């Protein structure tokens, strides 16, 4: 087994959630690596698309923003923002979104807007972008987070994107036809959501990471009874990631 970085593990771990035929709302950063790996390894029929409207680009070079001209080349269609979100919401499609956030709570609700009071924030972030839309409308979403107590919090400072809301069936009762968070992939572990309560639990810890370390870095109580060790990336997975998906190491660093 080769050495690998947390970012490489995250890309491989997230890529394993992707099935052939999925329509992937990719964003940039690690999400793009996850999608790139999945397409080359086990889901060649998955389609990557961007909220800006670039659908299934060839991605010869890594885009550094969802509006990068690189998302417009080799596409089947260059659509607009409204069309892109209509695809995400289409009941005919199984759409999976990859999202990041500044804060997450135990039901997978996300904050990417601000820390502190909304009217007078101590820290302002970029805002929703398409995150709220994807969290509202996609079949499922996967969250990338850096693990830490200030990020995994009991209560969000601002609810930008809807997860399982208050747990149980609150999401369905709120008026969402489908969707919700499927998993959270961090630099330490993979977390999933309980089948009925929708509370987050520890599913897989990465090789070399202790359960105690994960619990100490999580700002709410975490069920760890189902935790197993994650399967490390294979040599072939790492080769594909490093040589084919991001040879310039623009995202891998």
């Amino acid at each position: 087994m080769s050495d690998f970085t947390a970012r490489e593990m995250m890309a491989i771990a997230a890529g394993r959630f992707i099935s052939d035929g999925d329509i992937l709302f990719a964003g940039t950063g690690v999400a793009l690596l996850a999608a790139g790996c999945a397409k080359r390894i086990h889901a060649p029929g998955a389609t990557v698309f961007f909220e800006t409207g670039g659908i299934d680009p060839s991605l010869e070079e890594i885009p550094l923003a969802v509006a990068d001209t690189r998302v417009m080349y080799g596409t089947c269609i260059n659509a607009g923002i409204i069309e892109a979100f209509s695809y995400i919401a289409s009941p005919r499609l199984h759409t999976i979104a990859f999202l990041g956030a500044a804060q997450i709570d135990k039901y997978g609700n996300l904050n990417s807007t601000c820390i502190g009071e909304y009217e007078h924030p101590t820290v302002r972030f970029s805002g929703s972008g398409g995150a709220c839309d994807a969290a509202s409308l996609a079949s499922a979403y996967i969250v990338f987070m850096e693990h830490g107590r200030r990020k995994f919090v009991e209560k969000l400072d601002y609810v930008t994107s809807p997860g399982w809301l208050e747990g149980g069936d609150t999401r369905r009762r709120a008026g969402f036809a489908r969707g919700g968070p499927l998993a959270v992939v961090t630099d330490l572990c993979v977390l999933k959501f309980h089948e009925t309560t929708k509370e987050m639990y520890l599913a897989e810890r990465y090789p070399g990471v202790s359960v105690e370390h994960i619990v100490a870095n999580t700002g709410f109580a975490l069920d760890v009874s189902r935790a197993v060790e994650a399967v490390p990336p294979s040599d072939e997975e790492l080769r594909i990631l490093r040589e084919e998906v991001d040879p310039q190491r623009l995202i891998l660093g």
Partner: protein
Amino acid sequence: MSTYPALHDKLMTLSEAVSRFVGNGAQVALGGFTINRNPMALVYEIARQKKRDLHLVCHSNGQALDLLVGAGCVGRIEIAYGGNGRFAPTCVRFRKAVERGEVVVEDYSNYQMALRFLAGALSVPFVPTKSGLHTDLVRRSGFSEQYRAAHGLPPKKLAVIADPFDDGGDVVLLPALTPDVALMHAQYVGDDGTVRIKGLTFADLEQAKAAKAVVVTCEQIVPAAELRADADQNGLPPFFVDAVVPQKHGAHPTACRFFYDYDPQHLNEYKRVARDDQAYGGWLEQWVFGLGDHDEYLAKVGREQLARLAADPVRGYAVGLDRR
């Protein structure tokens, strides 16, 4: 100056377009998205003319938004996202201005903002969506009732109602946007005023059709017959266009497909200086206020750098560009 009879009252300089169509306090929609096809030449000119108290309506805006905020031109913003992708996950001057209370912000999502422009373009008062139910985008207003009344805005941000036809659950109703002016940069304008954007149009066309006036800068003015020979590619008919300004590299340092890529060195340097108030003030002096027009700005960027950004004619971006 016009050698294009059909454009005789529309063709003008940056300076004239901004002084005629962008007043203090105007509600402005910016074309493009984060680091692509921002109407930068117009934005630099707005900063040079020291326009104040602008009301920006944005989905995901990046460099154009940050420059206008940084130059002190903006009073309030309705926005989904203020960032430059890898080049500034949150735009630096936008972030500082919000944290210091120098601009008033109200948050939406990309789809919500795009739909609001569509409603404006359709001349309907509002548009429904499922996006944002039970989030703070719906529960929290950035503008107070008093602020709304004082600035001629609808009395509330949005409304949530139950599906009036069936049992489809709650929906969010978003008010239409009809900005005073939409600013956009296109690759081509025909000599009859037809607009052609190459690559993703983002919400530019909805913004233009919703706005009370449209100002377009373009890389090239071409014979109308050329655009009409393949009209499927065209974005806007001439009757929506109020001003046309031919301006090469009018989107620099953001990208313009088939003409040039974004400028990674410029964007990195911008992010670096933007963190420090004094350094940023000096940068604005050097790159905006101290220059007469966009051609002087391009001379300062330099021919060699512009050559590095030149787009590959097939792929539309600069292949192998150093983007670290």
